[in-house]
């Protein structure tokens, strides 16, 4: 669960007291695992600031960001990237233009692990996996793995960034252990013992199974080894609590309407298929109502509307506009 606790953030470019602008004013928010939240609001209402505070690009003046009850406010942006996938408004911002599609994907795949200075950056098994994932997008990107991202259209780049934000290799065992203890609810000591024993057991099982493989005839060995490895992986992955959270900052705003629709459909599909917790900032009220299962409206640094389920389904664009106007009037008074 992702929580914002009494977060306040103000910007001041000149240092003079009258230039201070409050972007977020004591905002608290709880987002449950698997929720798809859409966020709307006028310019300067604090919706993008919220995303930037969650991802760590901005440090809040006051308040905390909690992930499963663990305070991540002090963790720097690059380390937090292990838990958050991001797509930016500017298609240029999410990918490295002078690198190939494959290189971009390889970099994203290691997110949350250390980028090794010895390990070669490419692997054929990754390549196969990437092209399968890209094929599901239906944009023909799977045949253009070696092309530079710079030559692609905004829509293709956003789709690629979306894939980069939603997939990643499982973290290293050390990190899984650490995060299991960090993010578990309840007794930390007990969790530590639990994860240690489970890992020992899995390793022991793998070792014994591999010993038994040697007795098998040669042709069966390879398949059996693969099986054992897969079993071990699934055993380890059970303890990987850090499910990805997707942060979308107006990611279709710079695209033409048709491409925007396509990218939104892809987003929706990726989110629903993988049950990813998602925060989507958008300017388009219709999109905010069509997609997602919870809607939050920001106004001048406050949350003025937070609806989900049936209540959200009943809302129309006109209702939302009316609410905006009322909020504006109130602020003027």
């Amino acid at each position, binding site marked *: 669960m992702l929580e914002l606790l009494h977060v306040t953030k103000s910007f001041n470019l000149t240092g003079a007291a009258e230039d201070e602008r409050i972007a977020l004013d004591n905002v608290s928010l709880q987002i449950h695992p698997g929720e798809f939240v859409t966020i709307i609001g006028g310019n300067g209402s604090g919706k993008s600031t919220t995303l930037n505070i969650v*991802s760590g*690009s901005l440090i809040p003046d006051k308040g905390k960001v909690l992930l499963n009850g663990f305070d991540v406010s002090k963790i*720097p*942006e*690059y*380390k937090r*990237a*292990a838990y958050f996938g*991001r797509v*930016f408004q500017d298609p*240029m*911002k*999410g*990918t*490295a*233009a*002078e*690198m190939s599609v494959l*290189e971009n994907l*390889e*970099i*994203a795949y*290691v*997110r*949350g*692990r250390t*980028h*090794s*200075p*010895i*390990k*070669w*950056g*490419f692997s054929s098994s990754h390549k196969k996996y990437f092209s399968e994932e890209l094929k599901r997008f239906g944009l023909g990107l799977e045949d253009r793995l070696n092309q530079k991202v710079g030559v692609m259209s905004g829509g293709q780049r956003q789709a690629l960034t979306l894939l*980069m*934000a939603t997939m990643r290799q499982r973290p290293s065992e050390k990190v899984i252990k650490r995060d299991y203890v960090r993010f578990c609810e309840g007794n930390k000591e007990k969790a530590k013992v639990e994860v240690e024993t489970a890992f020992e057991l899995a390793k022991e099982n793998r070792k014994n199974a591999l010993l038994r493989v040697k007795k098998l005839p040669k042709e069966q060995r390879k398949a059996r080894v693969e099986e054992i490895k897969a079993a071990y992986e699934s055993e380890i992955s059970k303890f990987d609590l850090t499910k990805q959270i997707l942060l979308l900052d107006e990611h279709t705003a710079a695209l033409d309407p048709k491409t925007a629709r396509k990218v939104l459909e892809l987003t929706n599909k990726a989110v629903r298929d993988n049950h990813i917790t998602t925060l989507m900032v958008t300017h388009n009220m219709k999109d905010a109502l069509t997609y997602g299962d919870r809607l939050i409206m920001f106004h001048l640094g406050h949350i003025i509307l937070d609806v989900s389920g049936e209540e959200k389904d009943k809302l129309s664009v006109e209702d939302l506009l009316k609410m905006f106007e009322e909020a504006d009037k109130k602020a003027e008074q």
Partner: protein
Amino acid sequence: MEFVDIIFNILTMGLPCCLLALGIFLTYRLLDFADLTAEGSFMLGAAICGVMIYNGINPWLATLAGIAIGFLCGTITGCLNRVLKVPKLLSGIITMTASTAIAYIIFGMQNGYPKAFGQSVDFGVTYGGAQQTIFSLLYPWKYSVDLDMYIVPAIWGDVIKILVMFGVVAVVMIGIYFFFGTQYGMAIRATGMNESMARAQGINTNVSSIICVGISNALISLAGALFVQSMQNASVTSAQGYLVVGLASIIIGESIFGKRSFKNWIISVALGAIMYYIIINVAIRLGLPGELMSLLYASLIVVALCLPLIKGIIKKRIKERRNRLEEEG
């Protein structure tokens, strides 16, 4: 014979500058960091290596010390920029100024203590004085005690020099190619291209840029160390102005040999340095006075920068002409 002389001249100057150009390429092109430290680290590399050799220390050790001092200069620039948030250009200037001052002191330390500031280090390859270079260590020839020097047949000393330097350049190029293909190397390249993307993908961009600037300056001062050993002489003045040489090499290399892939790009940059010295040498043989050399440098850079444009125009013309011929049948 004069022709051979010219070629040897080009290669003995050009090969160390390949390393210089590759070093500058890492920051200027890959990291998008106009790093002026290069000037200082080249000079310091030459100073440290030269003075250590003059004082009788093993040339390999002296070369390593040169590399280390360059890496240090680079990390200082990187830290100034990344940790203390000094602007890129300014942090380069700061380290450059400081290291030039240190180079002055080091050049004066030829008898183990600062003797005179800013003099030149000058050593012959001798055995008795134990002044060897990494090249003379590999000489297969006899050492004459009477003359206190190696008896080297005509041009063969230069051949050894060139072969060794070529080996070093080749190793460095292969090293760069493989390092920037690893996960961390790709992370560094991503940092240079798009920092917000790099951070969003979990790369500590501060550390990766500092490391890249460090490696770059290590290569540059290795170039300085090879330069002083190949010339057997260096001073603050003779080791000056190499930043421009490196930049010009990169631009010339890119515009002549292209940058289609990473491999192609590295080779182009290295060949650019050789190309640069070919042009300079030809100009000297044609009788260009030394005073006008800087003018030649400037025009070279302009021409190199315009070359892609000219190439494009020529290609267009050829295409138009071909189309016209086809129409006429």
